[in-house]
């Protein structure tokens, strides 16, 4: 778009709102963020680069003077990291704030940065517990039986459903964030509704993980014990007391270890390998 066009546009709207972001502008930014959220993730500033790149279409429109544009670009190259699906809210709010600033309202640069850093933690927590820890594994798990039977639908359905639903959610949140602004969002976060959504997601997630463990963790002992001349199978005995006690014990043993010692994936893997080898050689497992 040429500078002339921009001037015309500015004249058309009334003087207090010189620059307005249209729905199309917001969608451009939103799509850039959805596509690139993790592409340029770096140790130094995590998602800063993609957030800045996503803001570019809007910033170019809002700041026609070069020094203002430079300031805005640098502002958004600062450290940023969150979960980008609920993070659509942040994008929306920030777009709103930049628009206000461009129109000469008193929005200090710090306010924009501190809004981003202030919200990215809580927003990431919501995203992690709902979108990643609950929704995604549940969705995969639901169609896993199909995969186990050899049907490609077990992979195709999650591949369609997960992105489409989360894309729509992020789209909605971005536009809502833009409309409502920062005050409304702080209220939304305090609202008890968010807490019960997280509770519901976690609870359903846990029950599903329990059910899946029962189906897919398989540990049994072929050991036969000789008691006064008569032989009986250990596994049968265990099953008659509590079915599935070995798999459940394995899940909780690993869980408790991780709670105490942190997510030390490699050590646990090594332990599993060693236990499997010993179990196989000795005939216990």
């Amino acid at each position, binding site marked *: 778009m040429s500078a002339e066009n921009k001037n015309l546009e500015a004249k058309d709207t009334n003087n207090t709102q010189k620059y307005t972001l249209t729905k199309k502008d917001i969608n451009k930014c939103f799509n850039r963020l959805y596509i690139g959220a993790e592409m340029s993730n770096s140790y130094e500033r995590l998602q800063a680069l993609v957030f800045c790149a996503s803001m570019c279409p809007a910033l170019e429109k809002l700041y026609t003077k070069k020094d203002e544009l430079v300031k805005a670009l640098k502002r958004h190259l600062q450290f940023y990291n969150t979960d980008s699906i609920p993070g659509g809210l942040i994008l929306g709010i920030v777009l709103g704030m930049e628009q206000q600033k461009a129109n000469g309202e008193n929005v200090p640069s710090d306010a924009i940065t501190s809004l981003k850093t202030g919200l990215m933690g809580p927003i990431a927590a919501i995203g992690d517990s709902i979108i990643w820890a609950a929704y995604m594994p549940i969705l995969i798990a639901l169609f896993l039986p199909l995969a186990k039977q050899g049907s490609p639908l077990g992979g195709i359905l999650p591949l369609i459903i997960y992105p489409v639903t989360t894309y729509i959610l992020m789209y909605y949140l971005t536009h809502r964030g833009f409309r409502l602004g920062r005050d409304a969002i702080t209220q939304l976060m305090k609202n008890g509704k968010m807490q019960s959504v997280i509770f519901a997601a976690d*609870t359903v997630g846990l029950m599903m993980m329990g059910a899946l463990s029962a189906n897919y963790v398989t540990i049994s002992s072929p050991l036969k014990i000789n008691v006064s001349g008569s032989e009986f199978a250990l596994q049968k005995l265990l099953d008659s007391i509590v079915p599935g006690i070995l798999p459940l014990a394995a899940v909780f043993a690993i869980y408790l270890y991780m709670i105490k010692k942190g997510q030390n994936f490699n050590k646990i893997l090594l332990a599993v390998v060693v236990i499997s080898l010993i179990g196989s050689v000795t005939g216990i497992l």
Partner: protein
Amino acid sequence: MNNILLVAILMGIYYWFCRLRCGYTFSSMLLQPVVIGVFVGLLTGHMKEAMIIGGELQLVYLGVTSTPGGNVPNDPALAGCIAVPIGVLSGMSPQVAIALAVPFGLIGVFVDQLRRTTNTFWVHRADKYAEQGNTRGIFICAYILPAIAGFIIRFPIVFIINYFGVGLAKQILVMIPTWLLHSFEIMGGILPALGFAITLTVIGKKELIPFFIIGFFIVKYANISIMGVAIFAVCIVALLTVFMSNKKGVVS
């Protein structure tokens, strides 16, 4: 289609593309072993075997889908892009394929660290572009350069291992003694426990653990399908939230 060269090339490209993370939630699903299974199935013509191995491998990485902070504790994509095609083409049992996958899942972590380190260069370059107000340059730093670097980092490893791996795996499979084979089976049975334990820690609500135990024993005692458990779970939770909000008196 049993051309190993073509399979190896396409798997390398697939690994590069899914790990590029192009499309936030799309790519995160694309890199799951069960979805890799679909691709391998299409590629090799052995859809059934590919889905079974992919599904089995998925269990190990179910919880890995959900780590906060963007760090990858284990890479399901590298594990899947190697174990599924080699497993299918050399006729491995799913358990042996899992045993093969696990070390590559670990190597994948280093590969990802390498990628995020190279990404640091692009953000510095973007700083310079920002100084000039060059938005085009910032776009290239955020999308194009990571894609090019990612290809150089990721394509070769999957291509080479797949290209040479199938033949090698066939030879090794014949030599594996039964006790070792059996220990792979045990491992394949235990490893999903790791996936579920990680999910438990990610959800991170100790007081809600009984729900996990309920889910476990519903299946053990009543033998209900996964979809059935999902239905019960949603209903129970829906009722619980009603009771809970009643207690606080916020129901309108």
